[in-house]
């Protein structure tokens, strides 16, 4: 059965034989860049469509159903509309920062893609500090949002950006601590090692209650980090009209919009990798027949399935819950999530030392 690992290896060998080391590196870089951009545009279209359909069904309506079969090309039409729209820069705005901000947000989202393992061996950069890299780089995106809010010269934008800054900086902590819980259990920061450690069972099942708590905190924290409802205070439609991207229009707005969905995909992919075994198939201890059937499903399907499940859960949150207030949001982090995750980290460490996990 051809797997993604074989394809990439074969391609690498073939390129090396044809062109030599330097050219191979260059060609592969270009290929990866094209693949990443392609993945992002497809993700943007698919996720926005998914969000609209999920929200529609939860709100007892049909959702987009006019453009293409069952409305599948609605997002394509929307993108076309955004491309032909004029990208206005408001009077009095800091033009350089205003135009730079959406690209920063987008580039940060793209960079986090590097260490993600989509399937066995199908990974852009298997860096030995993969998890640290993800946590470190993802906190940079707040700079893009602050930049957008400040440069817009709009009070709503400024308030939204400031909220977003406070929020992302706070929730980084508990997200990071939940990630560290898995790192403690695995003993490695390398993504491929973390996935490999889950061959005999996902951490969510192996790690007892402490990992379950870490997982719940991680889901809450990533919902907040991606500025999604019920933590969408940076946009807070009913309070700040559109928050930090109030003044953006056309393709610049689309970049923010796309970055939001790509960020959701990436954080959910990280969650799937750490807690749900990445591309590892579902295995039940001794039931070998069942395990064999599961092995036939390729890793990329497992990975995408788990990621999209988490994305669905986050969308489910959004279309059910009201929004928190800014002080409640910070209370939740500093008074509840952070102490719990610190205590939880102690438990996990104890568990790892004593070897209580499976």
């Amino acid at each position, binding site marked *: 059965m051809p797997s993604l690992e074989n394809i990439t290896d074969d391609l690498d060998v073939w390129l090396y034989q044809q062109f030599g080391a330097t050219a191979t590196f260059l060609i592969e870089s270009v290929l990866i860049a094209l693949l990443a951009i392609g993945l992002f545009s497809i993700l943007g279209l698919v996720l926005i469509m998914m969000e609209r359909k999920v929200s529609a069904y939860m709100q007892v309506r049909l959702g987009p159903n006019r453009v293409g079969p069952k409305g599948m090309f609605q997002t394509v039409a929307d993108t076309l509309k955004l491309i032909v729209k004029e990208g206005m820069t408001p009077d009095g705005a800091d033009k350089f920062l205003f135009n730079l901000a959406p690209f920063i947000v987008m580039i940060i989202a793209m960079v986090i893609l590097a260490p993600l393992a989509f399937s066995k061996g199908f990974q852009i950069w298997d860096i030995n500090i993969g998890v640290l890299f993800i946590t470190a780089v993802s906190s940079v995106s707040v700079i893009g949002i602050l930049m957008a809010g400040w440069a817009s010269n709009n*009070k*709503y934008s400024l308030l939204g950006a400031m909220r977003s800054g406070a929020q992302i900086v706070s929730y980084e902590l508990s997200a990071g601590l939940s990630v560290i819980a898995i790192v403690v259990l695995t003993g490695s920061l390398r993504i491929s090692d973390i996935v490999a450690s889950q061959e005999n069972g996902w951490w969510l099942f192996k790690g007892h209650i402490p990992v379950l708590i870490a997982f719940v905190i991680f889901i809450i924290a990533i919902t907040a980090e991606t500025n999604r409802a019920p933590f969408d*205070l940076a946009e807070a439609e009913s309070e700040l009209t559109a928050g930090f991207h109030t003044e953006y229009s056309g393709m610049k707005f689309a970049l923010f919009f796309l970055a939001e969905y790509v960020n959701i995909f990436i954080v959910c992919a990280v969650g799937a990798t750490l807690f749900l075994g990445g591309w590892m198939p579902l295995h039940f201890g001794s039931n070998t027949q069942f395990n064999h059937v599961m092995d036939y499903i390729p890793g990329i399907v497992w990975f995408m399935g788990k990621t999209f499940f988490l994305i669905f859960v986050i969308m489910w949150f959004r279309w059910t819950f009201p929004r928190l207030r800014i002080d409640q949001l910070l209370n939740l982090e500093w008074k509840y999530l952070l102490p719990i995750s610190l205590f939880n980290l102690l438990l996990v460490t104890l568990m790892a030392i004593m070897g209580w996990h499976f």
Partner: protein
Amino acid sequence: MYRQTEILQDATQVSPLNGGGDLEGAGDLIINVGPQHPSTHGVLHLVITLNGETIKKVEPHLGYIHRSIEKMCESLTFRQFIYVTSKMDYLSSHINNHGCCLCVEKGLQIEVPERAQVIRVLMDELTRLASHQLWWGALGMDVGALTPFFHAFRERELINDIFEETCGTRLTMNYMVPGGVMADLHPNFQRRVHEFIKQFKLKIDEYDELLTDNIIFKNRMQGVGVLSAADAVSYGCTGPVARGSNVVCDIRKLYPYEVYNKLQFDEVIETGGDCYARYMVRMKEMRQSLSIIEQLIDQVPEGEFQAKTKAVLKLPKGEYYSRVETARGEFGVYIVSEGGTTPYRIKFRSPGFSNLSALDHMARGGKIGDLIAIMGSLDLVIPDIDR
């Protein structure tokens, strides 16, 4: 959508638009919320002074959709002006019309047939339900949950269908005329109301699941925008806003009109005075309205639906006042007649205006999110305020 904001400016240079110029600190941020803003439910213009996220002052600016309805009414006959009042508080247009009809009937001393009285009360309570349903959905949207809005509109649609069948239109009905109602009940009316009651009783529990019991919603509403009973009275608040602050003010109980004194229903009173108390008042009022409709729907007496009136109505010289309980509070109609076919002077006491005046008091010291929640819990309809 336009987003109108003021450019950050030196605190010493204050234009009259920026809240009258009584700024306190240099770190204050002045924001125009509205007239075009997603959560002002129309075109309310608030100028808010912020210190960080904390609200220092809220100043409502009225006049954006002022249509001088009261002056307009002076050139309309006593049959015609009733219709204009449904454009004020368009969510309780039936009840507004009802108040005007009561006032004209008081002047002409018309005895309204009992069937007409029962039909009027039925329509009033259906209107109240429809209004509260829309409020519930819009409040959910204000605090960030978008799904309740569509669920609320699903049931509201059934009421609108009932109105459409009997009255002819869905929102501004003009179904009440001096002396009764414009047309008899549609033959399907009773069946469809029964169907509606059956469905709504199931769905109102889902409303509780989605918002009432939700912990985030509770935290957003409880202890926010507290209005004491004394303040509620001194600001002239009426309706669910005052009843949430432990003030007894239901006109249906205090000064019963039509057949309300023969009905079994409770005046809903909450003691909290915060947004959640106002929320609970409206949620319980929906159940009370349902019970009123259930009591009346099979008991509509036979008879005329409209008393015999002259083609041209002339109110005897004098002053007339009547009041009704709309979905938002007390609606008063004051007519001065010189004996002609048109009113000499007319004045409406609309509930929204008085309720809005308490906004500044409630919102001070809160966050922007609180302001939005308070505005949602006041259930403002802007044409009712601006007239």
